[in-house]
């Protein structure tokens, strides 16, 4: 295998330096093997990207993007579509009723709409194949931007540790902890409902002492940072308390205790 083939992986992850990029693209144009690998690795990298999708985009971005595209004209499909053809014929077709440009534009619009619908259908099919994940992602709640950034920082901290456990009521939770950031986060997946007048309450433990921390509503997926810093903390716990929170955990409602 010549050396240039070997660059195909770096090419797909956009890791080539500019001079090598030109060289590789010239090679790619004439190499069916590399063309196939670029396509396969492109699909592979798309799956790899799933590992990064912890953060929904800021909600306002959607509106801003939709506003932006309404000002931008989509490019016609390649090769140049029937437009040129029709316009070229227009002079000789003059006696015939003029083909209204509006109609033409409308046909092009409809065609683009169809193409976009196909794109949407393709993505939906892929989503179903992935077990509805993409759809699930769309449904997931839009958290506050600041919290998302902090959550990403925590999840990618060099010393992050995750403690996953099942609560007494069956809820699946994780405590994500970084000592270097001095922070911990509670993640609840599809939490049981606890009623409007109750909340999950987080606790930091220092030896025998439980220090009340933030409250989390029941039901659905939840993320909540601990308020307390971690120094001196020996464990994390969660209980169910009245909506206003408690100063001491109610022993019978303690859901999970994790030692750090």
């Amino acid at each position, binding site marked *: 295998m010549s050396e240039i083939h070997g660059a195909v992986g770096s090419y797909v992850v956009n890791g080539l330096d500019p001079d090598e990029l030109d060289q590789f693209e010239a090679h790619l144009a004439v190499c069916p093997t590399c063309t196939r690998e670029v396509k*396969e*690795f492109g699909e592979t990298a798309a*799956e790899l990207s799933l590992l990064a999708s912890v953060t929904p985009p800021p909600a306002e971005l*959607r509106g801003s993007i939709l506003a932006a595209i309404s000002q931008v004209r989509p490019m016609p499909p390649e090769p140049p579509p029937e437009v040129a053809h029709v316009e070229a014929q227009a002079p000789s077709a003059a006696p015939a009723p003029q083909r209204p440009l509006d109609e033409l534009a409308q046909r092009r619009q409809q065609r683009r709409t169809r193409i*976009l619908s196909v794109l949407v259908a393709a993505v939906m099919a892929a*989503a179903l194949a992935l077990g509805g994940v*993409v759809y699930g992602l769309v449904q997931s709640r839009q958290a506050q931007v600041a919290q998302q950034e902090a959550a990403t920082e925590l999840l990618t901290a060099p010393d992050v540790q995750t403690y996953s456990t099942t609560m007494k009521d069956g809820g699946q939770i994780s405590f994500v902890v970084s000592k270097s950031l001095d922070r911990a986060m509670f993640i609840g997946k599809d939490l049981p409902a606890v009623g409007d007048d109750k909340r999950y309450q987080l606790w930091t433990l220092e030896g025998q002492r439980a220090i009340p921390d933030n409250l989390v509503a029941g039901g659905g997926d939840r993320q909540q940072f601990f308020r307390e810093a971690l120094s001196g903390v020996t464990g994390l716990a969660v209980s169910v308390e009245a909506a206003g929170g408690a100063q001491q955990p109610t022993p019978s409602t303690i859901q999970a205790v994790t030692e750090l």
Partner: protein
Amino acid sequence: MALSARGHEEAFAELYDLTSQRIYGIILRVLRSPDHAAEVMQEVYVEVWRQSARYSPGRGSVIAWLTTMAHRRAVDRVRSVSSEVARDERYAFHRSDREIDQVWDGVEQRLDVERVRRGMASLTPIQREALTLAYFGGYTQSQVAQLLKLPLGTVKTRIRDGLIGLRDALGVEA
């Protein structure tokens, strides 16, 4: 006409809703700056809108098309602003495999994420590290070579082998 234009925009909005979290996730991971990430998101989706009629299934899936475009633009942005954005190279370098695995454990335990995570776990540590630094870190292969203190040729091979291993583990079909 207005109606069909509106239908077009609605279809695009749907495409955005289906893909935006995934696309934003990778952009943010590479850029590590929500401000830059938002700008690149906008660039990417406007470009998708412009080129939507030029997408061809023969070249790969829609999500791969979007992800490739997003990753490329995120990496371009990182390289053009790398002096502004504080990127601690040592941070990425010192993360052990175990720690990287734990990062993924912290992400909601979705089936497909789990599948990809297992695929990554099946790679050798150097393949995984090289691929992670290049893809999520947005480093060039020469930078990865410096970070890992390996010859460039080795890094190149490891990145490709990593993608081959992951492709086979995931059963990706082109």
